[in-house]
């Protein structure tokens, strides 16, 4: 049966969904190829997670000038050139992209360069000329920044998140439309390098997907740093004139206002790359751009699967990777869980302060009518956070009142995106708060805050 196709698994796209699926498939003994029209690694490595983390790291280095000055050092900024920051971020992306190339090769995955279009339920055509057959096709084509009418990206005044990564010269001022994770990270980066940043958000608070209390930590911190934030504010129209953009806004009472800046960064979500991949050839219809899938991320065709940003699951690199693993393990006849449990997905915002979270927010728990209790521990309760001057933040956990099950955890503060995993491990292995509360945590660490929050949940916090 295998011999009638070129490959057992053919993956379209090499982002964190596609390349992980391909490597895992090959590990499981399936003959596998990937198709990539651009650089290996997809958005995440090239124009997403990785270069932005490089910028965030460098922003923190730049911000620490104040610390040096506090020590009496004189820092001469005359030679500062943001282009060097940019170049470094590209270097990290290129290094990792090469790393993917190496990993695919090492795992005997064939890499096919070109644009893949599905032309049959077992067939993908490369650059409109070469047909490749596969028993199973995995669509991992990802997404791109969402464009909204009236705010079309022009790369100069109206920027997408991709454009923002490629800025070589800092603007004086920037409006950021949309206070989701991407918008907040750029607000942090550009503010750190001295850009006057103004965030405009339609919802009534920033990071609308996060727990309100943790979002508030970030909100207050940003205000302190001089970032302007307008929530419950609608972007009505945009004019470009005299080298500036003017954004007309309307607040919830209908009052209009106008903001001016050098540039506007539009981060209002992402659009799945499901057009131009040949779905019409196999009669798959998208829903709001997303490919409908069932268990094991299989489409209505037995031979076609879709994962990552192309389907309607959280648009996160680690979600795409896990979905890819589930698909190929299923193809290989293993017995993976048929889908990711959405309550077990960690999410992170790599601003300063950082946010790490999973599961029920307090708002969602309330909405669902769950009988919950919460424990909130401020970072100030930790010796470590005071010593390393990261006193902003909270660790918040949501617990089922009856069973003590951990329902969600929300951390805002230094190291949040790393700290969250201890609680998530407890959650996925069904440990109870007392299990973490009684586990010894090294002193002094920020992890002690996690222990303390669990003790608070058990009613015996020691340090507050």
């Amino acid at each position, binding site marked *: 049966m295998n011999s009638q196709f070129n490959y057992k698994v053919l993956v379209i796209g090499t982002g964190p969904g596609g390349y992980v699926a391909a490597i895992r498939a090959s590990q499981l003994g399936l003959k596998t190829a990937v198709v990539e029209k651009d650089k290996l690694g997809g958005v995440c490595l090239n124009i997403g997670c990785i270069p932005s983390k490089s910028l965030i790291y460098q922003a923190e280095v730049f911000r620490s000038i104040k610390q040096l000055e506090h020590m009496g050092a004189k820092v001469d900024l005359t030679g500062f050139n943001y282009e060097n920051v940019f170049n470094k971020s590209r270097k990290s992306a290129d290094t990792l992209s090469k790393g993917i190339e190496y990993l695919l090769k090492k795992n005997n995955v064939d890499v096919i360069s070109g644009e893949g279009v599905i032309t049959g339920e077992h067939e993908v055509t490369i650059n409109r000329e070469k047909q490749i057959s596969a028993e199973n096709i995995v669509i991992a084509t990802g997404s791109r920044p969402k464009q909204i009418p009236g705010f079309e990206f022009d790369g100069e005044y109206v920027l997408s998140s991709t454009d923002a990564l490629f800025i070589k010269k800092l603007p004086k001022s920037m409006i950021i439309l949309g206070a989701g994770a991407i918008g907040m990270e750029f607000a942090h980066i550009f503010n750190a390098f001295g850009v006057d940043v103004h965030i405009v958000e339609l919802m009534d608070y920033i990071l609308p997907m996060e727990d309100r209390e943790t979002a508030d930590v970030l909100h207050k911190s940003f205000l302190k740093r001089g970032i302007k934030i307008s929530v419950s504010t609608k972007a009505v129209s945009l004019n470009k004139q005299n080298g500036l953009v003017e954004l007309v806004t309307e607040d919830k009472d209908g009052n209009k206002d106008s903001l001016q800046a050098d540039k506007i960064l539009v981060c209002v979500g992402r659009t799945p790359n499901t057009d131009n991949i040949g779905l019409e050839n196999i009669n798959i219809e998208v829903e709001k751009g997303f490919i409908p899938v069932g268990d094991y991320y299989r489409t209505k065709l037995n031979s076609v699967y879709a994962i990552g940003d192309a389907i309607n699951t959280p648009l996160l690199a680690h979600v795409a990777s896990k979905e890819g693993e589930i698909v190929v393990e299923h193809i290989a006849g293993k017995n993976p869980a048929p889908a990711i449990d959405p309550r077990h997905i960690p999410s992170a915002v790599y601003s300063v302060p950082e946010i790490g979270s999973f599961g029920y927010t307090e708002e969602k728990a309330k909405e669902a009518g769950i009988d919950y209790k919460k424990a909130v521990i401020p970072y100030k309760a930790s010796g470590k956070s005071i010593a390393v001057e990261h006193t902003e933040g909270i660790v918040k956990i949501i617990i089922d009142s*009856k*069973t003590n*099950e951990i329902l969600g955890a929300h951390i805002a503060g230094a190291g949040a995106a790393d700290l969250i995993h201890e609680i998530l491990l407890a959650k996925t*292995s*069904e*440990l*109870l708060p007392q*299990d973490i509360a009684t586990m010894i945590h090294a002193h002094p660490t920020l992890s002690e805050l996690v222990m303390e929050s669990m003790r608070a949940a058990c009613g*015996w916090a*020691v340090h507050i």
Partner: protein
Amino acid sequence: MAEKLPMLALSPTMEEGIIANWLKKEGDKISSGDVICQIETDKATMDYETTAEGVILKIVVHEGEKAMVGDTIAIVGAKDENITSVLEEPQNAKPAKPSEMPPEKTGSIDREYDKNARESETENRKEQIKASPLAKNIARQHGIDLSLIRGTGPEGRIVKTDIEKYMKEKTGAPVSGISPVLKDQVVELSGKRKIIAERMTESMFSAPHFYLKIKINAGSMLNARNKLNAPLDDKNKISLNAFLIKFTAEAIKKHPVINSSLKGDTLTLHANIDIGIAVELKDGLITPVVRNCAGKGIIQIDRELKQLIEKARNNTIRNDEFTGATFTISNLGSYAIDEFSAIINPPGSAILAIGKISKEPVISEDNSIEIQSVMRVTLSCDHRVIDGATGAKFLAELKNIIENPVNALL
């Protein structure tokens, strides 16, 4: 220095107790003699008087939770004292003040040892079942036996969904193709119920029971009762149970082994005949004990019995008023039960089960048919202590006394 308050043995037989309610809360100041909480024990709710002084820093065992005797239920110390180190001490390293030592602890090392051995054995068995802490917690809350559940987690571990599936299957199983409209109700056991369950199981499985049945002509007893009661007003009328207690005590006098307790390799033949009588309560049953029945007249027995039952129903009965029966009577006659067999109530070695008194035709010695008020009684005996013939002799004696009350005078 903060100290731990242990669960006290509020009765000689108490091995564990449930906190019925806390009368003090964390942060409250307490001093010696204060009643800080109420404990649901074997059969009654008792006050917990403390001998400690200070502030309650932490309540360890909350309302509705169970603690073994000696387990820490709360921590007392100076206001704002750091109790981390106290909390982290292992449970069994708890030097209680002598006054707080459970009264029966001295000299009962064997019992203590047995208890520990038993506990670790159960623990071992539990250990063999792999289940997540959350799954264990939910199972405990719903009284689900984990050994009945197949785990689907890593390495066959029982996880939350397995328990949920099990509960769903148990309560929602369709009967003959029709989906059920009525749902089973799952009720958490009361402390009394749990203790009854434990004690009855222990009795049934440690004491080999055998049963002796006899028919007794209750006519003379009923006549005697009618005569005695005629001049009395309703509330002073002597109950049938008082008669039964009195006559049983007289029969026991002649067969003292019926009135004994087996403990390890020794048999205690009790000097006093303390007869417990099973009384139904809303959430279980209780056996108030009339002490030294052989030395008391029927009127006194009846008066004491009435007081005890009253207290039991008001939940004000003291621990020493319902424990340590050397013999027990269970009377279901008022429920129109013909006859039944009862489970022995430790530390006793036998129990008498009384059925209803009904008029029956009886063929007498001279072949004539006579209508008698017949009462069927069943004696359950612990065969480790009482042999068949011994039990039979006692029953014959009892029958003789009931049928000829005057024999009680002998």
